[in-house]
């Protein structure tokens, strides 16, 4: 297993630490994309590109024992929480050393060891599960808070409504975070969502709702942090909506037609959150250019090592197919009496 390449000073909650996490996500996704284009992985890739500030800011806001439950676009969370890139990249490639031994794949990058607990790729379908992890926290009085993320598209799924109501009536320790990137594949939120601010839907459940600038990790950290504190104090759930944008396509390797104005994409690309946050760190004296360049280099090396680890790892052996269907391993294979002569 690879060595962690982060010096202890880069606490993920710090300003520079958040920037490092954003960069780790970006570089990881770029590398994954290269692997896809060179035919080294199956399927499609749902990149976080453009949305890193939401991920880094919210991950920084959550406590060390908190639980994060995500969506099909989940590369960022295990990374921003400080997870090892090697097993994450190996999962993208479907390798035996992947975080889910290649079973889950790129829509299910998780790392429970850093709190990136679970993700579901059926829209809205992960939120009920997140309500349940919060229920355990409440019953066990563990102080753990769940962060449940979902997109603007998913905000229209019935599961979201039910989950918010259930969390509200039970005052569960959970923060709902809507990553509103303006689109569900090609369908604009301005068309598909009947309110301007999804955060306003919080009122339908008697919970606070807040809008945060999703290009600013600090703003996200503050908003999610306030909601987390409220939840941790037993005051129940909140909804935070981070306005963001994916500056890449919905997924790499899916056919696509134009569906959004080029200028819109260009204007968001210009305001790239990683570049602009870098500027802010320098301007405010949080770091020198040299320090940030060094982080760039470290991250580059870390990602390169992760790619190497992933590429060098073996695929699961054919017999592994039968593993993990049941917690009781004796059931994984069908009864012997069902084999053909």
């Amino acid at each position, binding site marked *: 297993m690879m060595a962690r390449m982060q010096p202890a000073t880069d606490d993920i909650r710090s300003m520079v630490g958040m920037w490092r996490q954003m960069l780790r996500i970006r570089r990881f996704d770029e590398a994954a994309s290269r692997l896809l284009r060179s035919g080294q992985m199956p399927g499609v890739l749902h990149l976080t590109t453009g949305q890193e500030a939401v991920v880094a800011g919210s991950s920084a806001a959550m406590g060390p024992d908190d*639980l994060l*439950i995500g969506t099909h676009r989940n590369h960022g969370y295990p990374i921003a929480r400080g997870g090892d890139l090697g097993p994450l990249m190996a999962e993208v490639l479907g390798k035996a050393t992947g*975080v*889910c*031994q*290649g*079973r*889950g794949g790129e829509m*299910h990058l*998780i790392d*429970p060891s850093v709190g990136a*607990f*679970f993700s*579901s790729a*059926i829209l809205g*379908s*992960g*939120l*009920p*599960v*997140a*309500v*349940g*992890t*919060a*229920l*355990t*926290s*409440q*019953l*066990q009085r563990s102080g753990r808070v*769940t962060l449940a993320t979902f997109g603007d598209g998913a905000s229209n799924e*019935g*599961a979201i*409504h*039910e*989950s918010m*109501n*259930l969390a509200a*009536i*039970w005052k569960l320790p959970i923060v709902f975070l809507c990553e509103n990137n303006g689109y569900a594949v090609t369908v604009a939120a301005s068309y598909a969502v009947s309110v301007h601010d999804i955060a306003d839907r919080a009122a339908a459940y008697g919970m606070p709702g807040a809008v945060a600038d999703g290009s600013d990790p600090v703003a996200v950290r503050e908003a999610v942090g306030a909601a987390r504190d409220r939840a941790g104090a037993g005051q129940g759930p909140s909804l935070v909506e981070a306005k963001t944008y994916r500056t890449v396509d919905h997924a790499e390797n899916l056919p696509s037609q134009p569906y959004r104005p080029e200028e819109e994409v260009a204007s968001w690309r210009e305001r790239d959150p990683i570049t602009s946050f870098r500027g802010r760190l320098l301007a405010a004296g949080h770091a020198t250019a040299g320090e940030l360049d060094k982080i760039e280099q470290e991250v580059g090396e870390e990602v390169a090592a992760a790619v190497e680890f992933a590429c060098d790892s073996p695929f699961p052996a054919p017999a592994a197919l039968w*593993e*993990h*269907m*049941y*917690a*009781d391993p004796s*059931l994984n294979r069908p*009864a012997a*009496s*069902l084999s*053909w002569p």
Partner: protein
Amino acid sequence: MRELTYLAAIREALIEEMTDDDAVILLGQDIRANLYGTAGFLDMFPEERIRDLPTSETACVGAAVGAAMTGLRPVVDMGSASFSFVALDQFISEVSKIHYMSAGRLKVPVTYRIPLMYNGGVGVQHSDRPYPMFMQMPGLKLICPTTASDAKAMMKAAIRDDDPVIVFEDTYNWSSRGPVADPPAPAPIGTAAIVREGDDVTVVGIGRTVAFALAAAGELADAGVSAEVIDLRSLAPIDWDTIFGSVEKTGRLVVADAAVSTCSAASEIAATVAEHRFEALRAPVRRVTSLPVHSPYTPALEREIYPDAGKITAAVRSVAKQASHGH
């Protein structure tokens, strides 16, 4: 030995498991006022472990999963099979898949009670018997105990199981009484029970059709046909060894299943026997299932559509009277 109703046996199982393990919690619509096994639980256990659910089945089925993944052992009462439909995605995409897709990093020790209410005049939308739908989801364990003793033993086993288990309760059996030892006779998930031995025809029943099969077997005995009756009891995994062993002896198979025939448990059993024990078969397999219609409200029609003792008797006769072919 003392006798209990099926529901009282389940109640005992729940009380014992909740007493034994604080991680066991009970969730259900109207569960606090529930007459079907959980009334009065509030006096026995802390409020927070007995939770009435809002009518939000998707959130509730999923919440139980999340709770199970993090250390609780929830038991969820779904009220009636037809109410589980709005939450099917949670069963398919989450309950059945999380263990596999996380390569075993996440475990889901959750139990769902799904009562099967039919032939009660509650109409088209409330009378489904959808266990074959759940049989199509790999990763689940599915049981349908028929006796009070099995109900207790299997409910306890379900709660202790580290995999998700769904308990289908044929509500016809709820008020039936039977002996329940303490502890109850073991009835491991994955095993069927031969409830009447016989030589000529194997009859596999599920839920209330077991009683019908036994009634049919009694009648057939008078006519000189010896039927062996198997209570399937575990729908996933299925106890193929018991079924195959019986068919090897009798050479004939009738399966009674209250689901609609197409892609039913009966179809699965008939197909599997025809595939893996073809040589043993001396007559066509027969399925005694519901007619391929929705359950009409009117009792004048509804009672006609389900399997009953008469239909099972006729099916057994139709194969028993066939000359033995041998292969």
